[in-house]
């Protein structure tokens, strides 16, 4: 697509932006725009936009709602930056916290599944209920007897491994920051 061009387009825009357009100094460029279709187009659009800009600013001043001061923007920006830095600093702690909750949850789930018959009996209060001491003794025996492929065993192992990993990561992050 061929786009028409006029070598005086930038001169016309300069005249509009500087204010020369409306006074005697702009007479010559106005005469040119009156005969050049392209420049007439540019002048029409540019003038409309510039008038809109001037009017909007004047209206804002008339309404008494000026722009925020440089000082206010500066201080708000400082405050926002400091808050962002604080949030970033506590991110490793929050991450460790979430990981700790997750590994704790996995452990609880694993133990529950493992000892479900005992727990169920204890809750029902039936003759199968076991005293607490004997329950822990039974848990220790069960740990020794379970095979590695047993799901509760895997869950407990996983949660212990996760807890150790989180501890190691937390230690690394703390040492790095120091």
């Amino acid at each position: 697509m061929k786009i028409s061009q006029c070598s005086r387009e930038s001169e016309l825009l300069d005249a509009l932006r500087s204010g020369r357009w409306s006074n005697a100094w702009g007479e010559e460029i106005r005469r040119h725009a009156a005969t050049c279709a392209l420049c007439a187009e540019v002048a029409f659009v540019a003038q409309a936009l510039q008038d809109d800009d001037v009017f909007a600013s004047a209206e804002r001043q008339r309404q008494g709602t000026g722009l925020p001061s440089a000082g206010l923007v500066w201080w708000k920006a400082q405050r926002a930056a400091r808050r962002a830095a604080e949030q970033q600093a506590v991110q490793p702690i929050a991450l460790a916290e979430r990981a700790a909750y997750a590994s704790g949850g996995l452990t609880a789930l694993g133990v529950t599944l493992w000892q479900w018959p005992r727990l169920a009996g204890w809750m029902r209060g039936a003759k199968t209920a076991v005293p607490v001491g004997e329950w822990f003794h039974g848990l220790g025996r069960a740990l020794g007897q379970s095979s590695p492929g047993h799901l509760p065993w895997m869950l407990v192992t996983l949660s212990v491994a996760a807890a150790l990993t989180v501890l190691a990561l937390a230690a690394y992050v703390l040492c790095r920051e120091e």
Partner: protein
Amino acid sequence: MSIREITVAELDSANLAAGAAEQVFRMDEQTFRAFYEKTARPLWSYLRRLLNNATLADDLLQESYYRFLRADLKSLEEAYQRNYLFRIATNLARDHWRRLPRRESMQATADEGAAIDDHVVEQAEQRSDLGRAFSRLRPQEREILWLAYVEGSSHREIAEVVGLKAASIRLLLFRARRKLLRLLGGAPAGSSKSGPHR
């Protein structure tokens, strides 16, 4: 973290006496104030016309300066910094449009002040026509037209702000201008003084 979440009350309660705040940004306050005085009004005008919403323009103005202050600028030249600032503002405006439903983003919002007398009524109507026509342009068209005809940016500068190649700006500007003219009802042949016709 957005600067818009910081309230004036929070500023009052913080210890922000002159010199008490540690330097958080690469640019010092004095330089920033001078830069702000030169660029705030044009930037606000740009955002206001892009978004057709003065209140939103206020918000994005502050957010633009916040991101500018945190940016790692490659040059201290004022022209470069100004361009960079406008680029940030353009991206923020685009983020805003992306979050809007398509129909809403193409409509002009009620942003005209109250009319007092006939002259003001006429001007308000003309602005309203321009506002309606402008809002029917695509965001990129609005950006290019405003940067070219109000900010007086070169094609290279416009390309940097909108994220396009400089060679394509001439064609895009031509098309955008033609489209706006069509939406405004066309320019009178050879006319150079009158504003948009209703």
